[in-house]
């Protein structure tokens, strides 16, 4: 009820036409939707591309980290978990501004990379795609790490020991037992990272240039700058719809995979 009512108005507004001065009226203006796709296709594709890369990176960083805490953390586990969620306690915007400081053109990171010739002498990190994706990865990393940790933590150690006795190979035991058992956490973490990453506009705004603008930037400027509410509402709806389709597709593929590994 707190969710559906606003959603209804979002749909309603998305079909309005008119302009700010004469007022918007409801008119089944479906062209808001065709415009949403034809005009902003690049932004949509870029958003999903960035979100997907950031989710993958977050997974690659979080999984070993969560694994390490779950199995090697010992009595420090809670403290280490606290370190993982520590970034949440610094306001999102301030965190992102901190990255701006770190990646600044005359900052330590850029000059080190220049000295190592990994970046050309006039190269920069700020205002690049890399910076935007790194920012998104950073900001949503805890969302990935925590669910993975929880599912790893719940695994019965004896199962892994048994697997190691049977397969006699740690790698194999990991891929046959530990990893499949942690899939629910991976699934939850992926969703929790991917969904907010798709709609994010702060990283693109603060760490990128107009060439890195994502769909979130378009929606927010339509609402707040040009006051083109119907178009903005249509864009939000399309974003939501695409995300839902992706989630369902993802849930299907992961679900069937889990069934097959369970049988094998």
């Amino acid at each position, binding site marked *: 009820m707190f969710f559906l009512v*606003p959603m209804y108005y979002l749909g309603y507004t998305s079909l309005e036409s008119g302009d700010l001065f004469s007022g918007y009226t409801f008119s089944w203006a479906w062209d808001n939707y065709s415009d949403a796709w034809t005009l902003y296709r690049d932004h949509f594709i870029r958003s999903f591309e960035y979100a997907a890369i950031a989710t993958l990176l977050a997974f690659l960083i979080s999984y070993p980290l969560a694994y390490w805490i779950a199995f090697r953390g010992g009595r420090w586990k809670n403290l280490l978990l606290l370190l993982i969620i520590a970034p949440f306690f610094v306001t999102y915007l301030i965190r992102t501004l901190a990255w701006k400081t770190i990646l600044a053109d005359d900052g330590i990171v850029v000059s080190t990379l220049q000295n190592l010739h990994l970046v050309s002498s006039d190269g920069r990190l700020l205002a690049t795609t890399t910076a935007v994706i790194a920012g998104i990865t950073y900001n949503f990393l805890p969302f990935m790490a925590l669910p993975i940790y929880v599912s790893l933590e719940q695994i019965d150690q004896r199962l892994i020991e048994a697997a190691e006795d049977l397969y006699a190979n*740690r790698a194999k035991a990991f891929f046959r037992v530990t990893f499949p058992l942690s899939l629910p956490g991976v699934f939850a973490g992926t969703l929790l990272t991917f*969904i907010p990453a798709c709609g994010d506009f702060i990283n693109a705004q603060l760490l990128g240039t107009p060439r890195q603008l994502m769909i*979130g930037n378009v929606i927010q400027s339509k609402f707040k700058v040009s006051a083109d509410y119907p178009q903005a509402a249509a864009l939000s709806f399309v974003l939501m719809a695409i995300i839902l389709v992706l989630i369902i597709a993802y849930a299907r593929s992961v679900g069937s995979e889990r069934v097959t590994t369970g049988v094998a």
Partner: protein
Amino acid sequence: MTSAVETVAVRRHRASATTRAWAFVRRHTLTLFAILAFLYLLLPIAVVVVFSFNDPIGRFNFKWQGFTLDNWLHPFDYPQLGPAVRLSLVIAVFSAVIATAIGTLMALALVRYRFRGHGSTNLLIFLPMATPEIVMGSSLLTLFLNYSVPLGFTTILLAHIMFNISFVVVTVRARLAGYDRHLEEAAADLFANPWTAFYKVTLPLIWPGILAGFLLAFALSVDDFVITYLVSGADQTFPLFVWGAARVAVPPQINVIGSAIFFIAIAFMLANVLWQWRRQPKGAV
């Protein structure tokens, strides 16, 4: 491949030295990786804290110039910063209290009663958490626009209550799930009054869940930017202030407030961790 593995299995005692060496390497690679990951996570925080002591020349606090305590001594010495922080706190308190009250009742109803629409209510609670903030913010904004609600304090508060409720419900419900209903029945048998039973038995038992839900709601409210940004009018919360400021200047006071919020939150969490640690029996992992 399989035969090789089986051979290893059979001659396990002989191969144990190599296995152990491999395990040693692997163990330390993982540890090294974890340390690097932690550095990545904590580096920006360190930057925020360090730069709160910076004495910047010009309007941007991006380059280290010199150490000063001025920013900490005069944290609100910047136009509009004080009112923004105050508004954030007011909104956080109100929205957390209201969302906790509604959320707790919803959680109780969801766990206790099998009413019509039970399943869809569960889904509806999950949905706001699975929606990108920008979509949620825009849907609320269109709602307010359609009713010509003036954007400002009220709309920010309503929006915060809305997104907080889901989180409270989930937190309280988690606590309720692990709780024995027979206790309440026993209480009902003894006191024979549902209200007394609720106050004396149910409430104390689910209290940690309610408190956790409240703190979570408070934290989310203080930190929220996207939704607040969309539904706000001229009023500024602290994150909105940072956003507005970032275009023209980044005063070090922002870092001071940011660090202060961080330290307060960390102190809370540390207290909680230590408390759990002490309650845990020594032998337990």
